[in-house]
């Protein structure tokens, strides 16, 4: 039943279901396997190379007469249960499966208990009246209500931002990245103005990508800060910022370097590695202060390796 519901849901939300095979079994299996490199897509939906390979693998295994179970096991043996959209009930996951029912059970119990108490206080025992002999019952009830209200307001005031923030952070990778790095120090910051030479500008079609990165002037060539932009045809200058949070490798940030060079490269093949025919410009080596300004002219062409 669970599989059916999941299957229906994924049918509703996936616009481009692969129809590589006529077999319904094949389609069902790849719908139920997660693409490993794209997170919220199934193998059926994804266009990534790994997904293509794994689809091929599923097809081959079906052709050799493997059952669904064997295929799911093959995948989870290599990529953990993460790859399964319908993970099995295990000791480590039973809390995940049953905690909603547990919470429901306890809150119903609490609700029942508090109703019962209120009833007692309202009608039944004179003992409860005695207990509050200095105040009237109504006053006590009112006060209780007030404190409850205060708690509810407090809860809402804290809860709503948290929920919004969490939904926002899960909505996109960029958002969660931004939140995670919000409190990090961004300095040193490099303001870069990039000018594209007129001869090069005339050759640009708008299909290129602009890589801007800072690296050490000597030693390791790892980019310490990198950003990527779409190139717009006829656009002559770009103003961009590189800062301490734009590192590729955790330990290699701008603040770890003494002297850096900033390079701007327009890649026609949209590749991170320089290839012949790319347009490039680089700055002189500079020593970093907390904020820096640089002008780079893209005026040469990458030749050879």
């Amino acid at each position, binding site marked *: 039943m669970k599989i059916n519901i999941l299957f229906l849901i994924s049918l509703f939300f996936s616009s481009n279901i692969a129809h590589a095979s006529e077999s319904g079994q094949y389609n069902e299996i790849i719908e139920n396997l997660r693409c490993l*490199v794209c997170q919220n897509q199934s193998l059926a939906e994804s266009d990534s190379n790994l997904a293509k390979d794994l689809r091929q693998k599923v097809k081959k295994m079906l052709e050799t007469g493997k059952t669904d179970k064997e295929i799911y096991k093959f995948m989870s*043996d290599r*990529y*953990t249960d993460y790859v399964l959209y319908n993970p099995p009930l295990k000791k480590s996951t039973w809390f995940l499966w049953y905690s909603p029912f547990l919470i429901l059970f306890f809150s119903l119990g609490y609700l029942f208990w508090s109703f019962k108490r209120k009833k007692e206080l309202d009608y039944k025992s004179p003992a409860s009246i005695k207990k509050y002999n200095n105040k009237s019952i109504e006053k006590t009830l009112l006060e209780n209500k007030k*404190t409850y209200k205060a708690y509810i307001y407090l809860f809402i005031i804290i809860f709503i931002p*948290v929920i919004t923030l969490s939904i926002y952070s899960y909505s996109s990778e960029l958002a969660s990245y931004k939140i*995670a790095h919000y409190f990090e120090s961004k300095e040193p910051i490099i303001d870069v103005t990039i000018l594209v030479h007129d001869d090069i500008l005339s050759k640009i079609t708008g299909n290129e990508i602009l890589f801007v990165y800072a690296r050490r002037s000597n030693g390791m060539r790892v980019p310490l800060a990198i950003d990527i932009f779409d190139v717009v045809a006829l656009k002559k200058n770009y103003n961009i910022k590189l800062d301490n949070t734009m590192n590729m490798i955790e330990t290699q940030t701008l603040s770890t370097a003494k002297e850096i060079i900033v390079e701007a490269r327009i890649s026609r093949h949209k590749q991170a590695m320089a290839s012949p025919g790319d347009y490039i410009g680089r700055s002189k080596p500079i020593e970093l202060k907390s904020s820096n300004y640089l002008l780079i002219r893209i005026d040469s062409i990458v030749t050879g390796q």
Partner: protein
Amino acid sequence: MRYKLSVLPLLALITIFYFLYSSLNKDPTLIPSPLIGKKIPEFYSTTLLKKKPISNEDLVGKPFVLNVWASWCYACTLEHNNLLKIHKKNTIPIYGLNYKDDTDSAKEWLNSKSNPYKDIIVDIDGNIGIDFGVYGAPETFLVNKDGLIIHKHVGPIDESYYNKIILPLIEK
């Protein structure tokens, strides 16, 4: 009793806060390997340079590093220097798994840099990669003398990889 109970939402809130906060710094793309503690999968292939046959049994016997790379992979160029450094220490062999690569460009890539690998296993269609649970190059496996995978690293390895991960195994 009522006042005591009203602490509950606060506790719940703190728990939610904790989980939200801890998930901020997690890398959602990281998948733990189920292969840790298991034998390296079986494979039969050839080596890239000498074109001699190679299988999983040829590797087992001494601890080794298996590095999944390809010439199309930018991050692989970033870790290359660190691999060379490990290679120069001459304490542990590094095998390469050339993952879904064009053989000629792989050779060219190696020629333009120096070669840290003892042998390179060719995996043109990525099937060996699937058996190793590879989902993106570079990935680095550390295997002990019994052929059990004891560590897997996704992404380029950095300078601390040797001291933190490899040394404890060698010194054992």
